[in-house]
C-alpha cells in the first residue's frame, strides 16, 4: 500500500515536472522569438539607415562633382575663352589691311569663340542650377521648361500650386528639381509625347510634384519585374529614399503616364534658412 502511495507521488512529481518544462518551453519560445524579432528589426533599421547614408553620400558627391566641373569650366575654360575672344578682338583691330578671305576667317573665329562661350555657360548652368538657389523651385522649373520649349515643338506647361512657394531647404529643393528634370527628360526621350504638364504643390507637411505626359505610357510593374529599370528611375528612387519620399506611376487619362512624387517636409528644415547653393564655391578643405 505504501509502495502504491509512493508510486503515485512519483508519478505526480514527474507529471508536474513535465508540465513545468512544457510551460517553460512555451514561454521561452514566445519571449525568445519576440527578442530575436526585435533584434532583427533593429539590425534591418541600421542597414536601412546605412544604405540611406551611402545613397546620400553618393548623391552629395555627385552634386559636388557637378559643382567642381562647373567651376573648372567657368574659371578655367570660361576665362581662357574670354581671353581668346579679347585677343581676337584686339587682333581684329590690329589687322587693318586684310583681304576678304582673312576677314571671313576672323569673323568665323570670333563667332566660334562666342558660340563656345555660350555653350560653356549653358553647360555650367545645367550642371549647377543657380536659379534654384537664388529664386527657388518655381523659378528654376520655369527656367528649365522655358529652355526646353525653345528647342522643341512639344508643349510643356507648369502650374505651381501657389504664387510663391516657401523655401524648403537645399536638399529637398535640389532633389525635387533633379527628379523633375529626370521625369521630363524621360518623357521627351521615351514617351513619344506632344504635351507635358508639370504641377508643383506644397503644404506644411508635404511637397508634391506631378509630371504627366500624353505619350505611349509605360507599366512600372513590368519594367521592375523584367529588370528594365534604367539609371534614371533608380536615381529618382534613390533621391526619394533619402528624403522618405514616395513615387507613384499611373496611366494618364489621355493615354500617357503620370508620375506623382510626394516628399515629407521636415519642419525644422522649413523653419530654417536654406543653405546657399553657390555654383562656384569650392568645398572648404581643412589641412
Amino acid at each position: 500500500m505504501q509502495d502504491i502511495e509512493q508510486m503515485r507521488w512519483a508519478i505526480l512529481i514527474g507529471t508536474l515536472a513535465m508540465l513545468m518544462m512544457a510551460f517553460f518551453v512555451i514561454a521561452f519560445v514566445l519571449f525568445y522569438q519576440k527578442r530575436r524579432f526585435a533584434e532583427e528589426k533593429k539590425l534591418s533599421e541600421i542597414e536601412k539607415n546605412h544604405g540611406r547614408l551611402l545613397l546620400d553620400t553618393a548623391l552629395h558627391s555627385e552634386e559636388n562633382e557637378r559643382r567642381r566641373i562647373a567651376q573648372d569650366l567657368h574659371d578655367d575654360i570660361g576665362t581662357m575663352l574670354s581671353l581668346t575672344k579679347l585677343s581676337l578682338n584686339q587682333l581684329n583691330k590690329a589687322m587693318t589691311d586684310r583681304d576678304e578671305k582673312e576677314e571671313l576667317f576672323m569673323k568665323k573665329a570670333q563667332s566660334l569663340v562666342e558660340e563656345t562661350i555660350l555653350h560653356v555657360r549653358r553647360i555650367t548652368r545645367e550642371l549647377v542650377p543657380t536659379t534654384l538657389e537664388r529664386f527657388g523651385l518655381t523659378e528654376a522649373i520655369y527656367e528649365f521648361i522655358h529652355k526646353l520649349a525653345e528647342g522643341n515643338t512639344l508643349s510643356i506647361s507648369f502650374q505651381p500650386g501657389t504664387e510663391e512657394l516657401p523655401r524648403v531647404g537645399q536638399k529637398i529643393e535640389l532633389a525635387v528639381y533633379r527628379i523633375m528634370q529626370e521625369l521630363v527628360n524621360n518623357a521627351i526621350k521615351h514617351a513619344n509625347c506632344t504635351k507635358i504638364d508639370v504641377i508643383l504643390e506644397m503644404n506644411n507637411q508635404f511637397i508634391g510634384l506631378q509630371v504627366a505626359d500624353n505619350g505611349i505610357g509605360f507599366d512600372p510593374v513590368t519594367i521592375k519585374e523584367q529588370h528594365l529599370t534604367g539609371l534614371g528611375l533608380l536615381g529618382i528612387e534613390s533621391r526619394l529614399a533619402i528624403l522618405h519620399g514616395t513615387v507613384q506611376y499611373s496611366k494618364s487619362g489621355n493615354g500617357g503616364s503620370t508620375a506623382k512624387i510626394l516628399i515629407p517636409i521636415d519642419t525644422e528644415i522649413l523653419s530654417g534658412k536654406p543653405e546657399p547653393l553657390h555654383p562656384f564655391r569650392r568645398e572648404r578643405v581643412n589641412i
Partner: protein
Amino acid sequence: MLDKYLLFFTHDILANSTVIVTLLPIFIIIYRKAYVDPTFRLLLIYLIIKLVLDVMMFHFATFRINNLMLYNISVVVRYTLLSGMFLYKFENPLLKKIIIPLSIAFIIFSSWDIWISNPNIAHINEHRIVKYATTLEALLMILWTLIYFYELIRSLKIPSLLTFPFFWVCSGLLVYYSSLIFISPALNYSMRWETMFAIGYLDRVLYMFDIIIMLLFSLGTWVFSARFYARH
C-alpha cells in the same frame, strides 16, 4: 435511456465534460473556415473521430460495457492524425519524410501492444489499455512539438506567435502530452476490472488536460483567419 445518460454524466462531470468540450474546436474550425489549411483539416478530422469515439465510450460506460478497446483505437488514430499535422508544417524535408513511416511503425507497434496487453482479446470485459503505445505516442509528440518550435524560432517567419494558430495547437499538444507521459504507463494497471494499482486523483489530471488541450485548440483556431491563410 436519457435518464441513464444524464445520471452517468452527473456521476463524473469532469470526465464526461471532455466529450462536450470537443465540440468547441470543431465548431470554431468550421465557423472560422480553418479547414482551408490542410493542418486544420486534419485536426478537424481527428476531432470528429475523437467525438464519435468519445460518444461511443460514453454510451458503453453508461451501460457498464468495457470501452477500453475504443480507447486503444483512439491512441492510434490520435497519434496518426496529430503527427500528420506536422507533415504540412515542418520545413526540413528529412523530417517530412520520416513522419509517415513512423506513423505506420506506430500503428504496427500499437497493434502489437494491444495484442500483448490483452491476453484474452476476444473477451470484451477483459480488455485493457495498451502498456507502451501511449508513452511512446507522448514521447514522439513532444519531440515533434519541440522540433517544430525550434524550426519556428530559427526561421523567424512569424512576427507574432500569439496570433499564429498553430503555435497554440502545438502548445496544447506539448502541455497535454507532458501531463500524459508519466501517467500513461500506469493506466494499463489501473484501468482493469480487478484494479491492481489505483492511480486515484491522478486520472483527474488526464481529464483536466484533455479539456485544456481542447481549449488551446479552440484558441488557435479562433485566431486563424482564412483571409490571411496564404501569408502563413
